[in-house]
């Protein structure tokens, strides 16, 4: 009886909502539906910061759709993907999370209990804007100065499974920098150790470095990718421009793709195609809204959206291409060997 009453209520609400949303036929399939947005991070986390304005603006774009947000933290973002992959009910489930799980899947790490190629990609909200910085006391003003240093540099990364470890290890494999990589140093400790002169080099998003750059404690020397950087970082050389001669173009392409895909938005594998198309249309409308851009600007967040088809193409090229995973892992292994002092030849 209760179920019948509820069904009738939802039917009525759905009918009313469908009528109200008829004005925007592209979004009509979502009228009266419920969307559960799984945010791959705890409340107040970086991913939450990117996701919440998106959720609020999506509510405005889809006024007749019930939108519920759920924080699912854990496993370096993996848990949110696992949760979304298994969603099969009538509720539409969408995940917003960072791109670490792409690395996990490519490297075959245990947490990758999902397959990103099965997701329906709706878009990416930003790119990762990764830059390499060195501590100011090192006496180096630019990449050329750093490369000319004789001494081995201490590079700090957050964990063995983190993107920063992959990027830093590849940096060692693709360039002439001599790095000793120390893992398990979180962002805050790393900054303090750079100020103290105990850590020389690290990689993070450009915005993450701004206070320390302003304090004169660190100096940016390199950007990982080509696109989507703020004007202050636009003059930095790219990884592609300083990589050792003979580095396969595919490796640079992998690193740049990983840099470009930040804060992914994807629908569960069970989502019907017409709903995916509608979600992509809604995503395009959200990111085009000036109030959404203003909300990101107010939070010091970089808005650099990529549409769903492009994201799907890049993820298929990364996680669905065995050669990409092979190259990443081969150069990573070589970089690890170099960092541990072996005389490795990074040209697998």
């Amino acid at each position, binding site marked *: 009886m209760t179920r019948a009453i509820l069904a009738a209520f939802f039917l009525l609400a759905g009918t009313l909502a469908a009528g109200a949303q008829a004005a925007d036929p592209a979004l009509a399939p979502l009228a009266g539906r419920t969307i559960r947005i799984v945010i791959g991070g705890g409340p*107040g986390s970086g991913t939450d910061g990117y996701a919440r304005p998106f959720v609020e603006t999506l509510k405005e774009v889809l006024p007749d759709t019930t939108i519920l*947000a759920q924080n699912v933290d854990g496993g370096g973002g993996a848990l949110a993907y696992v949760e979304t992959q298994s969603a099969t*009910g009538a509720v539409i489930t969408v995940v917003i999370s960072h791109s670490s799980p792409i690395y996990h899947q490519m490297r075959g790490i*245990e947490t990758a209990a999902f397959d990103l190629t099965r997701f329906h990609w709706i878009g990416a909200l930003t790119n990762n804007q990764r830059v390499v910085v060195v501590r100011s006391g090192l006496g180096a003003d630019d990449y050329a100065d750093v490369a000319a240093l004789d001494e081995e540099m201490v590079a700090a990364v957050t*964990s*063995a499974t983190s993107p920063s470890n992959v990027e830093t290890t590849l940096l060692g494999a693709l360039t002439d920098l001599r790095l000793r990589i120390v893992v398990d140093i979180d962002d805050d400790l790393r*900054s303090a150790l750079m*100020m103290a002169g105990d850590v020389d080099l690290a990689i993070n998003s450009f915005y993450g470095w701004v206070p320390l750059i302003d*304090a004169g404690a660190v100096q940016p020397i390199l950007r990982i990718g080509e696109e989507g950087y703020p004007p202050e970082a636009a003059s930095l050389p790219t990884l592609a421009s300083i990589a050792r001669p003979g580095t396969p173009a595919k490796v640079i392409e992998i690193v740049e793709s990983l840099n470009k895909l930040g804060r992914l938005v994807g629908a569960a594998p069970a989502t019907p195609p017409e709903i995916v198309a509608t979600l992509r249309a809604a995503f395009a409308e959200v990111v085009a809204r000036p109030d959404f851009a203003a909300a990101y600007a107010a939070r010091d967040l970089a808005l650099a959206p990529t549409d769903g088809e492009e994201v799907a193409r890049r993820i298929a090229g990364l996680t669905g291409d065995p050669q990409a995973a092979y190259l990443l892992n081969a150069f990573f292994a070589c970089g690890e060997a170099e960092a541990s002092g072996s005389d490795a030849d990074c040209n697998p």
Partner: protein
Amino acid sequence: MLEFFGLESWSTALLALTAGTAIGFVVGLVPGIGGRTGLILCLPLATFFPPYEAAIFLFSMHAVVNTSGSIPNIAFGIPSSAADMATIIDGYPLAKMGRAGEALGASLSASAIGGVLGALAFLLAIPIAQPLVTSFGPPEFLMLAILGIAMVSSLSQEGLIPGLIVGALGVVASTVGVDFRSGEARFTFGWLELWDGVGLPAIVCGLFVIPEMLALKPFDTDSQKRATTTSIADVARGMLVTFNHLRVVAVSSWYGIVIGFMPSLGSSISAWLSYGYAARTTRTEIPFGQGAIAGVIAPEAANNSKEGGAMIPTLFFGIPGSSSMAIMMGLLAFVGVAVGPNLLDWNRDLGLSFSLAGAVILSNLVVIPMFLLVIPTLVRFSSIRREGIVPFAIALSIMAALIDTPRIITVVLIAIFAVIGIGMKLANWPRAPFILGYVIGDMAEASWFHTQQIYGWKVLQRPLTIGIALFIVGWLIYVVRSRPVLHIPGPRIPTLATSGGLLVGFGVVILTAFRSINLAGRTFPVAVSIFGAALCALIAWLAFRSKDDPPVEELAHVWIAAIAILAIPYFGLTVSSMAMAVAMLIAGGANIYKSILAALAFGALQFTLLAWLFDIVVEREIIGRFAWRFLGF
């Protein structure tokens, strides 16, 4: 003047300060919210103010959350964090003696003094901010971790060996999850949810709250009467008592400030180090662990002073000194305040540094009348018949754990730790060392690794490291000489059962480590487990031979609590909580209709909090699997 401070008007700044303090006070009262969530919840309100006033609002709010947070800790024994447990150890026994007003007064003045000292330290740090932040690194963290382990003895009034076993268990628990150094999962047994470790609120709920609540020891009538009549005079007396312990306040505040400005160190460490300091240096009428007032003063002073310490790296260099400060940085950016060295510059935003320090100082003072206003009423609730509080206290504690991690693993952990906690309670073993072991375990392992990797033998050139090391050696010599070591604190059967159970547990850890973890990842947990297992065997042997056998403490409603916890995954938190409340109240002799009414009122309040305040209704463990399926998720 206004221009220097960057304010639009004094009246707006005052409004921001008062509103922030009032809201922070309320936020602290609700178990499970805490400073971090409180900040996120308050962001929409902050946007009503101009940027600098919004910053004042946020800092005022955050500065007093710990102050009012001591009320549920002391009056009802409900913690939300590891730091809260340090206050509860002596605060709750005081409340049970009918001295809640005095304990709360002491906590209030200690918090206020700690908060003010922290803010003053922040101001004094302006000329020396950079050397201050960079003077502590992994070698000093390692020494502090070892100092913390040495403090276990201070928390083990009931017996040194049980204290060391429980501390070892806490250290082993801290190794659950991904080993960041190797990328390997340790002791996760296939649960992805354990990759980030064991949630502390679940541990606190299982290990402390449930055993305490189920230990049926009704308040004596006199205590109940005294608690009912707690007045502002009682609170004022408690406030004055703090001034008899100014040394404890000063040293604890110092711990808070120092730990606060060390990035990546858990803030609860300061509360526990302070508690350990007070326990080993203060002579009291009532022993520590049973209601020593200095045991309330120390962690509260450290808790509030750490905020001033954490502001130093956060505001001057954009390096968050604590997890709350990481969120604060994001919120400040949102309201239009840029942090960084501009706050050290006379020509730029130095005035804001003074404004924020002033806000922290004033909010710690403004909160005093608010506290005094509500305490007599709130404390009255603590004198309600114990049977009337138990189900709601347990339900609130489970709610706090599920808010932290709304996954089935939380329910499983609560159940496991409740069994361990009940065993320790019956064996009369100290449980506080577990929290200390847990909060310093990861720090010890990581700092050891970093010290080796970055510094090597150069660590011997760091005078601060050597200084702390010498202090630890002296302290250990003192402990070994001054304490009886081979002492069994409780009855034989629970001691044998608990030590036997933990011996098996340590054995499982060792076997699992050798089967599935590489050498680098298993060395630390295996070494600690071997130590714990050896002590378990020793104490089991001592218990077996012991002639003393004191009576076993009685517990009540164990089965009701067990069934309610196991029902959560299926029926959800609210339904299970209400059912538990009805069952316990009726079993305790209450009227059936009143019991149902009370449970319904609690359920409505709990669901409203979860839905509107925490926004986490869309969770299987909150609404239950049956409802989850029914609603089409």
